[in-house]
């Protein structure tokens, strides 16, 4: 089985979010980048397939040279090859089209992406990729098993979960549950050393078009101070929630 894991390169969850150039660009100053958390769960599941069922695992990112340390980290965790499509990621559709070309050229059976990227929050690349490559698609995937060309997946739905059967070629958009937090791997020294010599192929972009454009960013309006209510005076809290906030 040939597995491709899509890796989005995102600001660490503790990052302060600021903008520059008249609020049109994300301010990368002092920001640490990581593998998108949803993708990390997927990558770990891919390693499980590799070790338990025999599979090759490639990772891919659509982005500039600055994403290479993130791809190296994925190699250190155990991926075999990394691919970087050399173009700035501008919107979900463009990224999905670039990824579709990688998927077709590489003949992958299973593509594991994340439910959503924590920076763009599109929740769209994997579904578009599936449709562009005529693959089956399961989103919010919290469990995946493969047997030959058959797959069984569990998807989180509002208020519960749903078990589905499907077949390869398949794209999933994964999240926590695909593996547990404790299963995530921190690259060890040996992994980091071997990652240096693993292939990281830079491929030319297919010059896919975009459908949307980012015009500007805004930060939420600053919050007023909290109103404290005495623990012995909870009638007041009920009163405030009813008469002032009007939420009960």
């Amino acid at each position: 089985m040939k597995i491709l894991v899509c890796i989005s390169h995102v600001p660490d969850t503790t990052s302060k979010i600021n903008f520059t150039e008249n609020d049109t660009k994300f301010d990368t100053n002092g920001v640490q980048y990581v593998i998108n958390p949803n993708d990390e769960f997927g990558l770990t599941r891919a390693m499980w397939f590799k070790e338990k069922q025999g599979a090759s695992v490639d990772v891919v990112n659509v982005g500039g040279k600055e994403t290479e340390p993130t791809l190296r980290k994925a190699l250190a965790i155990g991926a075999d090859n990394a691919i970087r499509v050399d173009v700035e990621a501008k919107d979900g559709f463009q990224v999905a089209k670039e990824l579709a070309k990688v998927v077709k050229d590489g003949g992958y059976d299973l593509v594991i992406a994340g439910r959503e990227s924590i920076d763009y929050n599109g929740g769209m690349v994997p579904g578009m990729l599936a449709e562009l490559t005529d693959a089956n698609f399961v989103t919010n995937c919290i469990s995946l098993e493969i047997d030959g060309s058959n797959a069984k997946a569990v998807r989180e739905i509002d208020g519960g979960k749903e078990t589905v059967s499907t077949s390869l070629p398949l794209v999933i958009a994964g999240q926590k549950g695909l593996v547990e937090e404790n299963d995530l791997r921190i690259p060890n020294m040996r992994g980091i050393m071997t990652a240096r010599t693993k292939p990281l192929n830079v491929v030319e972009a297919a010059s896919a078009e975009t459908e949307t454009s980012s015009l500007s960013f805004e930060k939420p309006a600053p919050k007023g101070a909290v109103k404290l209510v005495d623990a012995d005076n909870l009638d007041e809290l009920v009163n405030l929630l009813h008469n002032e906030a009007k939420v009960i």
Partner: protein
Amino acid sequence: MSVLVYTESENGKFKKTAFEAASYAKAVAEQMGTTVTAIAINSNDVSALGTYGVDKVLNVSNANLKPFNAKSYASAIKQAAEKEGSKVVVLSQTADSKYLAPILAVNLDAGYASNVVETPSNTSPFTVKRTAFTNKAFNNTAINTEVKIVGLSNNSFGLKEVSASATSEDFSPSIPNNGVTVESVDKATDKVSIADAEIVVSAGRGLKGPENWGMVEELAEVLGAATACSKPVSDLGWRPHGEHVGQTGKPVASNLYIAIGISGAIQHLAGINASKVKVVINTDPEAPFFKAADYGVIGDAFEVVPQLIEKLKEFKAANA
């Protein structure tokens, strides 16, 4: 030309998000000088849609569309958009609508903006405000394709009633074969889901152990709320994963969010910031959550929560 809205239902009944999406579609249609058409799939009674601004309903009743399948639903919605010549398609952001949206986008050659929180600031170029960086910021995005798909963030627009009624016509789209078959659904029917909830009661590690969740559930029950938790609580197995909210869990955009024994780490706040009113109950006055909350009680959850339950019961009895 009409704005098309997919009004999602469950077991034949419209979800609240369907009425919200319809209300939003009506506002967009007014901006564009056109009408609203809804596509309803296996809904028992579509008459309520008129109240939320829908002019015409394309009523689909097809046993092959039960249970939900993203590809089939996307195909039905695509055929409705083509039939109506719609340039704007509005979806809500339930799990199912988020699932079908990217598939629909590819098939309609439409640009898609998800997590949209306001009506377009401009219709040409069609510009919407959406959340980004997991609620730490907003992004103004232009959709440049002829057909546009807007995913309306749940609870961001609200319900707007009008006094009108909708006409209904039967619609029978052709349904393609699809490669994903539902085997089983496991869903607590007696509980409000976080996505649908107007009020969410959430608790963290301050509660010390899973045995102490009885009061959280009781508070939720009194309020008709969904229960949620912080990430370590689900990682420790005290609560199911489905309850984990925050940047790496579920987003919460409820009207009221009550956080009990949750410190207010940046990753937690990111996921719940879109909630309108936030209440924190915490022993530590320095807990970061107090900076993000509207109302706060400095106190021990084990004393405050049971009292709050009593006060709310009294309030409910008095206002019944």
